[in-house]
């Protein structure tokens, strides 16, 4: 646990110092919201279902950039080799990277979501905590997958495009389940069922467990 905290503190310290990832990712998220807003028209209020879909577009693209940037920190100057040689389980490196990514994506979501609410006039007042909870669970699964594939792709020359191509299809179940949940909540006025949340939790657990188990096999010095 100490090693996880040490690595998270390192990642956050680097980010606080150069502000490269968070700054870029936030700008990208807001740009996506703006472009979608201009494209879809900002006069019509958008219900929770559409709001979730619009926000997912921003989260997905911002997330991919975030995963790439945070893994690039380890690739620069071959510092990953030093990390891999440290006497720590490689699952520790995964957990630290995942939690660091999660902090950054949630920070982006905390800015992009209100921007979307303002831009589109989303009315989330009916169930704001449900919205936040469902999106947080979905983002956890997204970060679990993104962290794993960013490590895998970082040793490839294709990077950006390849990472998006790999992550988006695998994340699709999370996107579908969360948008369906939001549709039930905001359009139909139905409460979120425990079974639906259970599906999200199950996805998260599967993604987290598999990613943690295979992480050491995908890391190449």
């Amino acid at each position, binding site marked *: 646990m*100490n*090693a996880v905290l*040490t*690595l998270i503190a*390192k990642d956050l*310290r*680097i980010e606080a*110092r*150069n502000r490269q990832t968070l700054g870029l990712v936030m700008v990208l998220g807001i740009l996506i919201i703006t472009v979608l807003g201009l494209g879809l028209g900002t006069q019509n209020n958008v219900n929770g279902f559409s709001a979730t879909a619009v926000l997912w577009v921003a989260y997905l693209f911002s997330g991919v950039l975030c995963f790439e940037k945070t893994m690039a*920190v380890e690739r*620069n*100057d*071959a*510092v990953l*080799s*030093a*990390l*891999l*040689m*440290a*006497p*720590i*389980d*490689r699952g520790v490196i995964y957990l630290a990277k995942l939690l660091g990514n999660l902090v950054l994506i949630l920070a982006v979501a905390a800015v992009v979501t209100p921007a979307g609410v303002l831009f589109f006039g989303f009315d989330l007042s009916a169930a704001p905590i449900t919205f936040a909870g469902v999106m947080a669970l979905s983002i956890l699964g997204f970060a679990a997958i993104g962290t794993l594939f960013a490590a895998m792709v970082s040793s490839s020359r294709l990077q950006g495009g390849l990472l998006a191509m790999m992550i988006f299809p695998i994340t699709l179940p999370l996107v579908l389940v969360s948008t369906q949940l939001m549709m039930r909540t905001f359009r139909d006025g139905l409460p979120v069922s425990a079974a639906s949340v259970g599906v999200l939790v199950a996805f998260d657990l599967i993604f987290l467990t598999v990613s943690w188990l295979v992480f*050491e096999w995908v890391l190449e*010095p």
Partner: protein
Amino acid sequence: MTQTQVQSSPRMSTPVDAAIELLDISKSIDERAILRSVTATIPSGQFVTILGANGTGKSTLLKILSTLIPPSSGELRLFGQTATATSVDLRRRIALIGHQSMLYRDLSARENLELFAKLYGVANPTARAQQMLNVIGLSARSSDPVRNFSRGMIQRVAIARALVHNPDLLLADEPFAGLDAPSIDALEHLLAQLHEAGKTIVLVNHDIEQSLRIAEHAIVLRGGRVVVDQPTHRLYEREILSEVR
């Protein structure tokens, strides 16, 4: 670098114990054979240089020794134990200095050293980082980000990072590359001190004359095979040159 306070290895074995045993190691990458049936034994406390032309597998061999990559076949034994990527306790006894710095460029020298001291479970990481900064003579600039350092200074921090956990086995992949003459002298001096302290050193180097001067044993690779495995006092530069061409 200032006079170092190199610690003798508390786990130092008797000179006849093998620090490294390469047992019929082969490595292929993308179906291309890089190493072919490499067998060699390096006793604890020996200073060995690995020589060979470009592409003969020197760096690959070092990566295998550092457990960063597995061999395609054969067995690597370090300090009497079979070494794999999951050999966490063995990794505690190894250090690698590579072509690249292996340092976080946005962290300061002190932060880098403290980070790796913590990851290696070094008691009092702050004090150890300060001790290593004194050794490499960079205490005055310990708070500067590494990216602001010259190549020579970065290499000094990289060496301190590698030694922060007082390893028994130091693997160095062309550590002299890009250094100026004073830095080369200082690094040679440091390696000599580490050798005197009982550390096992494996040095990959392009400068044959320098390697034969500072190391006590040479392994020469050609086409991924060991063609020379001799004490350096029995070898001449001309002899090595004929093998590496």
